């Protein structure tokens, strides 16, 4: 893990000093345990702050579109499997040009879910977490424990199908196995196992703690609309209140807009302050897309996304 971080720092410094890129987007050590944050290095010295750890839960592709286009020219970006797939998606949707991005490919180590670690120490405050080989050393006020990373890995990383980056300019470490053995179809769409009657309760009690801060929308690289449907007033599709219907409308439509585009990077779930498992909606849609169109988003630059083109043999059994 540390070797990869070191390689990133060197490459970043080299790229910056040669002026090949104006900025390198990577991760830096956070001020709060288990929280590395997206960091913009403009000078070789700043490149030294870049790290690589199992706590890099944000999707950096998000920052390729969030910054004003004209300001920064060529950018290098650290990208593991799911981030690289997001980059492919953004290129296909004309949001970024392939030549503007220099991709530093990294095999994804499988990120840690900081809530799973916190749940092991209910109500206790964790002061520091360090990586030691395959394990994590968790220190708190009056406790210290060692936990194997495998047990606290994020759900989406556990069932990730594409650990190695899809498109890359330079690899920062050798390619690992392409998945962690998790079977995405078994895990996806957990509510399908519930009775139709109970599903609504499960859905509502999952989203009732939502405080409508839209962190899930803003953390996602796919949400780059100037005016999101929640901001539209005339007509108002979805109210701003905490009513059950408004919260439900927001989550259903946000997930719907990711259909055929979501690369399951889990940034939305990591960003949510209330710990809502928003991936439950997108995993269901992606499962349908796989079954109906046999297409997984962001894998290949040329393939046209299934929902934006009509083919005669599209499945239509739901139409009478």
């Amino acid at each position, binding site marked *: 893990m540390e070797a990869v971080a070191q390689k990133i720092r060197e490459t970043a410094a080299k790229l910056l000093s040669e002026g090949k890129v104006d900025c390198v987007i990577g991760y830096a050590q956070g001020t709060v345990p288990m929280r590395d944050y997206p960091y913009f290095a403009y000078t070789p010295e700043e490149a030294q702050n870049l790290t690589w750890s199992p706590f890099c839960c944000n999707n950096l592709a998000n920052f390729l579109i969030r910054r004003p286009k004209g300001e920064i020219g060529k950018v290098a970006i650290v990208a593991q499997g799911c981030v690289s797939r997001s980059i492919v998606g953004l290129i296909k949707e004309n949001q970024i040009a392939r030549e503007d991005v220099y991709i530093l490919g990294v095999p994804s180590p499988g990120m840690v879910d900081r809530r799973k670690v916190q749940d092991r120490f209910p109500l206790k405050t964790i002061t520091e977490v360090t990586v030691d080989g395959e394990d994590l050393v968790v220190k708190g006020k009056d406790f210290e424990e060692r936990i194997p990373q495998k047990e606290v890995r994020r759900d989406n990383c556990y069932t990730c199908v594409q650990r190695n980056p899809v498109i890359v300019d330079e690899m920062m470490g050798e390619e690992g196995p392409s998945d962690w053995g998790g079977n995405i179809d078994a895990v996806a769409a957990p509510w399908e196992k519930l009775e139709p009657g109970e599903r609504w309760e499960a859905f509502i009690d999952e989203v009732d703690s939502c405080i409508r801060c839209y962190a899930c929308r803003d953390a996602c690289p796919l949400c780059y609309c100037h005016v999101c*449907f929640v901001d539209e007033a005339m007509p108002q*599709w*979805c109210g701003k209140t905490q009513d059950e*219907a408004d919260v439900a*409308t927001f989550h*259903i*439509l946000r997930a*719907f807009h990711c259909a055929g585009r979501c690369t399951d990077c889990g940034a939305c779930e990591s960003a949510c302050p209330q710990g809502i498992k928003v991936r439950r909606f997108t995993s269901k849609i992606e499962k349908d897309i796989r079954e109906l169109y046999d297409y997984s988003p962001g894998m290949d630059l040329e393939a046209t996304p299934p929902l934006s083109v009509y083919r005669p043999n599209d499945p239509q059994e739901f139409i009478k």
Partner: protein
Amino acid sequence: MSDNSQYQPRIAAFLCNWCSYGAADLAGVSRLQYPPNIHVIRIPCTGRMSPKFILQAFRQGVDGVWVSG
């Protein structure tokens, strides 16, 4: 939205102007009887149909949505 004694569902029917709306007119011309629960909203084509309308219809408390192209 009046609900009388015997439960009468309210159904929002989005009919495409050229195909289904035409079929509805023809059903009228040939005096085919059917239950009055559907409320027709004319759209130029099913392409015009968007998930926002379906969600909005359910938010308005309709009991069923029917999209016909």
